[in-house]
């Protein structure tokens, strides 16, 4: 069946919709298709301590004194938390004052990294559209939320009006077939994809992640994949909501999830099938996330610091993997091992499970729940010439606060195997 479009002379087959097209249709009251520009209602708006002060200034400049709905706006202090320097302290004060003035929730220094805090507190549910003033806002795609990072000005507009304009993205479909080898994790799957398509491989597009491997993953592990959608330029990294997703939301929030599946005849801009069985541990080398090698190519590289945490891999499952590997073992004497639980809840759960005890006894330095040393503002800036292996999502030059350091990215298991041996190590031998 053909239909006249608003583009003169162009006919298209009426086809099914992607997850992105369905969510934008529902939130804009239009028949939204890839390429359309829509004004859509957003279900939630978030900012963190790097970006919120500029959004607050933008609201002040516009003369806007209130947010559109205080229940739908939250600010999270996580990037420099607790404040390491007086300039940041002043920015935190601006955020706290804004919260008092508008009623918007401020999650202060004890609460954790924004991308764990927002879903844990039930601020988003499947089927939602939300924006955050942080590029890794794409994390909640794993929860069937179209979530995307915006700048502070766009964030301010959304805080003021509850609306924002969007270009409905094309969608790339990525299907992971097969099954994961022991010692290989969701982080390896997304690093592998980054190596394949490059850091701009999905620019302006959404990605839908499908396949039996995704179905098998826990919600924690799925969030690792969606978190890094931005690292290939994507606007969102979406997954279907299944029973695990819905179980994850039980007891959180007050709204009812409205899961969105893609239609069977949805049109994708491109499709890619990856045999996960053939993917081993992957490492992104300095200074680009797509500079990815199988671990065999970098094994033996000496490291001075390991980092477990961040919005990519600071969740309970990640801390559990680390604790099991470090049970009865110790961090190498020449290595500093920094652990940042993703949130207060993660921290409490990890304590209850005994993980924190094991990690600390093994030699880990556990820091405040939050971004940890990922963005180079505090909590472990490396020295000149040092190699760091981290579970974070970025290894840009200078990312951790020193442009003369070298950052390698890997899974929690790869990081832990490496901090035990003092050099980059294939973790599979710990999972034999």
């Amino acid at each position, binding site marked *: 069946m053909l239909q006249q479009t608003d583009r003169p002379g162009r006919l298209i087959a009426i086809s099914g919709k992607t997850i992105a097209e369905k969510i934008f249709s529902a939130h804009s009251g239009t028949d939204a298709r890839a390429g359309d520009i829509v004004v859509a209602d957003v279900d939630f708006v978030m900012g963190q301590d790097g970006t919120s002060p500029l959004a607050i200034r933008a609201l002040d400049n516009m003369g806007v004194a209130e947010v559109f709905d205080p229940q739908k706006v939250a600010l999270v202090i996580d990037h420099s938390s607790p404040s390491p320097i007086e*300039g940041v302290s002043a920015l935190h004060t601006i955020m706290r004052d804004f919260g008092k003035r508008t009623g918007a929730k401020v999650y202060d220094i004890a609460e954790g990294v924004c991308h764990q805090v927002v879903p844990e507190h039930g601020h988003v549910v499947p089927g939602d559209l939300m924006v955050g003033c942080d590029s890794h806002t794409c994390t909640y795609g794993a929860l069937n939320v179209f979530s995307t990072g915006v700048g502070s000005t766009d964030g*301010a507009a959304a805080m003021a009006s509850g609306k924002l304009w969007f270009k409905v993205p094309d969608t790339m479909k990525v299907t992971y077939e097969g099954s994961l080898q022991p010692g290989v994790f969701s982080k390896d799957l997304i690093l592998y994809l980054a190596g394949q398509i490059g850091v701009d491989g999905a*620019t302006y597009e959404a990605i839908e992640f499908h396949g039996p491997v995704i179905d098998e993953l826990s919600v924690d592990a799925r969030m690792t994949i969606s978190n890094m959608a931005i690292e290939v330029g994507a606007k969102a990294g979406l997954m279907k909501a299944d029973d695990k997703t819905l179980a994850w939301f039980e007891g959180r929030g007050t709204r009812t999830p409205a899961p969105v599946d893609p239609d069977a005849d949805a049109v994708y801009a491109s499709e890619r099938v990856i045999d996960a069985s053939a993917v081993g541990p992957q490492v992104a080398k300095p200074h680009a996330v797509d500079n990815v090698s199988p671990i065999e190519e970098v094994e033996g590289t000496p490291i001075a610091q390991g980092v477990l945490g961040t919005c990519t891999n600071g969740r309970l499952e990640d801390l559990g993997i680390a604790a099991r590997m470090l049970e009865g073992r110790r961090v190498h004497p020449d290595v500093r091992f920094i652990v940042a639980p993703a949130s207060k809840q993660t921290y409490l759960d990890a304590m209850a499970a005994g993980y924190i005890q094991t990690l600390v006894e093994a030699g880990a330095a556990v820091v405040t729940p939050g971004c940890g040393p990922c963005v180079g503002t505090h909590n472990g800036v490396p020295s000149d010439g040092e190699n760091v292996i981290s579970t974070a999502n970025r290894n840009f030059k200078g990312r951790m606060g020193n442009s003369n350091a070298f950052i390698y990215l890997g899974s929690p298991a790869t990081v832990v195997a490496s901090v035990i041996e003092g050099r980059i190590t294939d973790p599979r031998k710990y999972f034999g």
Partner: protein
Amino acid sequence: MKFHGTAHKYGRDIDTDVIIPARYLNTSVPEELAKHCMEDLDPNFVSKIEFGDILVAEENFGCGSSREHAPISIKAAGVSVVIAKSFARIFYRNAINTGLAIMESPEAVDGITDGDEVEVDADAGVIVNVTKGETYHAQPFPPFVKDIIEKGGLIEAIKQKVAAG
């Protein structure tokens, strides 16, 4: 809108962490941010930019974080327009919202060498390499983008629109 200056050329995937490292996000004052613009990539960047100069880069300029401090620092450092083969999505929108002129033109990027004198007519979408005597083309600014950039960003544009009734 017209721009004229010396081109300073860089590679692909220039990320927002090298444009303005997070360790300097303890302020949102444009002039303070400008002091550290691009310093992890080129420590001499700030000193060699004359007001109105043109930043040229390969693909995927501005990838990485959503920090608006990145376009703010480039603009405050004196750059009049960024010409790249492509821009990362969030940066593209942030640049317009903060009033930094940006243009996509692969042929201009291929043609321009570091240090060339370049003239840009953004409304016409024409880029002239004065040094080499070459002309390149880009998409001209749509009128609403031109309006936002001329007024110094989205917030200023909205304020003026509201004030004008």
